[in-house]
């Protein structure tokens, strides 16, 4: 790993650095706008968290198009950046192609499950674990035994999340039916609402959605129809109190903090690393609507996940 070595001996505590020591140059590359209230926004929060907790400044670029991935990596490589975060697995190919040309830069692809020696690593959230917990909670809150799960695109992480949601629900009660739908959008909030309404009208009494803003639409639908929803990714209990029974949230900011801390400690490895409940990057925010009994079941589930007792139900490509 590059810069990490000279940085390692120095104490990470701010102020302890020698003035001659240059601050590490870190950048975050985002595929979308930072105010998408979802994937990219949480990354931006991570950036803020790293600045606050670790005292390290991080730059960012947003809305970088697929065609520009390679040139963007190159640009930061040329400029001698130490650590380049790329926020999404879609960056992996480009990192693989460009990485070898800039051995002094470490490319960290968020959610990638692989790494490439010596300087391309991956770190991600096991999103399916979040979906699994949401599914367990949901299963205890349906009376009609029908639930709707909405995804943005059939990407592996999203498909995995919905599959885990379904598997968890069935584990609680095999009679439960989950309707899964992809809306082909991250931001068409009206489509999210209408899709959820259609599910509710067809008998679902709980909706779950993993698709940035689209989720807001589905929660709105649940509110309109007087059924329940599970908040996801961001804390959404306040979006519709009484409707959102609880939120399963990603601590994406924590992910960045872990990675930057590793970098400062010189512990970054060129491998894929995925974090889950055990690493504290997933969380639940309860509301009063949840009974202690339910909480207990969830806690058990989370513990099982932490212990690796539950398998990822996702099978790619089906």
């Amino acid at each position: 790993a590059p810069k990490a070595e000279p940085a390692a001996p120095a104490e990470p505590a701010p102020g302890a650095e020698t003035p001659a020591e240059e601050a590490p140059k870190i950048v975050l590359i985002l595929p979308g706008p930072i105010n998408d209230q979802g994937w990219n926004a949480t990354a931006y929060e991570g950036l803020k968290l790293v600045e606050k907790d670790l005292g390290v400044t991080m730059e960012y670029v947003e809305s970088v198009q697929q065609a520009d991935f390679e040139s963007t990596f190159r640009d930061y490589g040329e400029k001698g950046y130490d650590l380049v975060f790329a926020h999404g697995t879609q960056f992996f190919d480009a990192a693989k192609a460009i990485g070898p040309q800039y051995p002094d830069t470490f490319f960290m692809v968020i959610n990638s499950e692989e790494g490439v020696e010596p300087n391309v690593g991956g770190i991600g959230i096991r999103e399916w674990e979040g979906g699994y917990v949401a599914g367990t909670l949901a299963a205890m809150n349906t009376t009609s035994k029908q639930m709707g799960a909405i995804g943005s695109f059939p990407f592996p992480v999203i498909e995995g999340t919905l599959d885990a949601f379904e598997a968890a629900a069935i584990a609680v009660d095999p009679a439960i039916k989950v309707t899964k739908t992809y809306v082909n959008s991250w931001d068409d909030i009206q489509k999210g609402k209408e899709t959820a309404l259609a599910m509710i009208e067809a008998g679902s009494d709980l909706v779950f959605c993993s698709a940035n803003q689209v989720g807001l639409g589905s929660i709105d639908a649940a509110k309109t129809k007087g059924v329940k929803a599970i908040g996801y990714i961001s804390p959404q209990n306040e979006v519709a109190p009484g409707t959102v029974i609880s939120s399963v949230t990603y601590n994406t900011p924590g992910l960045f903090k872990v990675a930057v801390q590793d970098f400062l400690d010189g512990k970054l490895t060129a491998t894929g690393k995925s974090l889950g409940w055990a690493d504290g990057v997933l969380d639940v925010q309860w509301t009063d609507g949840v009974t202690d009994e339910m909480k207990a079941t969830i806690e058990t589930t989370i513990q099982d996940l932490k212990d690796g007792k539950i398998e990822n139900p996702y099978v790619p490509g089906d």
Partner: protein
Amino acid sequence: MSALDKRIKDAFLKPGARRWSVYSLLVPIVSVLLALVLGSVLLLFIGINPLEAYWYLIFSNFSNTYNVAEVLVKATPIALTGLAFTFAFRTGLFNIGGEGQMFAGAMAAVFVGLKTGHLPPFVTIGLCLAAAIVAGGIWGFIPGVLKGVFGSSEIIVTIMFNYVAVYLLSFLVDKPLREAAGFYPQTDMIGENAFLPFLIQNTRLHIGLVVAIILSILVYVVLWKTPLGFRLRAVGYNPDGAEYAGINIRRNMILAMVISGALAGVAGFTEINGIHHRMMDNFSRNVGFDGIAASLLGGATPGGVFVSSILLGMLQTGASAMQRGVGVPANIVSIIQALIIILVLAGNMMRPKLEMRLKVKRQEREEREEREARKESQGHQEGGIDA
């Protein structure tokens, strides 16, 4: 029947063969500067030094070979979709479907590239190109036929077909062409033999640029130097007149759409075989629309299109550089792009008026000078007599 299209076309088919003058260069430059000045208001608002930002916007493009190559990499598909628009435009058709036709070409190229990627480069690349041309052509053919047979507005049909292409592509990468690993909604890499050769080492600049240049010349020659182009333009300017001269309107309209679609299809080919080497959702977005802008900025002439695509390419790479360099948010970049398009086109519209005014002034001055000169010489003579 197709009154809508006819009218819309009439509005744009004003002869474009304007003579070259200093203003052809000066006016767009002033327009771009004006757009930048307006954009700087927003930049100042969020505390970014506009001069620094614009330094990145413009000069980063020339800072090294790679960046120069990147500009051309961006310009290549824009030039091709720009040519596609230009070709249809010159024949009186408004093809907004460059985006969809490009995707059609890409779908075909990637399919053939996956199947034939093991063949010798010359063969597989040729097959990919041919497939892209055919697919783009078909995506232009359908609106062309609907226009010719039912008089359906090709403007709206091509816009609709953009969406159809996007979803078709999404379906292909989701299901039938999904990578073997079945992981991401994208295809496998095409065979390496199908990769377009690079023009400059260690850049992404590929031979697609040469294809675009050759096609620019070809489009120019066909439109203005051949009977085929004569026929197509006649149909564009005045279908009734063309029919009177024995030209089959329907057939030529369809042909124009097919050629236009095929040109855009080639853009799909260069993007797939030259850059991405596989197909995924949402790749090369907006290239079709950029092509329209390039065409109109370039006065709908092949040369103009080429120059404008380079301008747009610079704008795009420069915008990224500006974002990376001084942290200009992406939304300001799109605002500045919109302003540049609007102001450059506005400048183009005002140019004839401006030139006319200056011409009149010059003539008046000349006349005045002439009069004065005459008076003076008369005065001399009179003086002479007096003396």
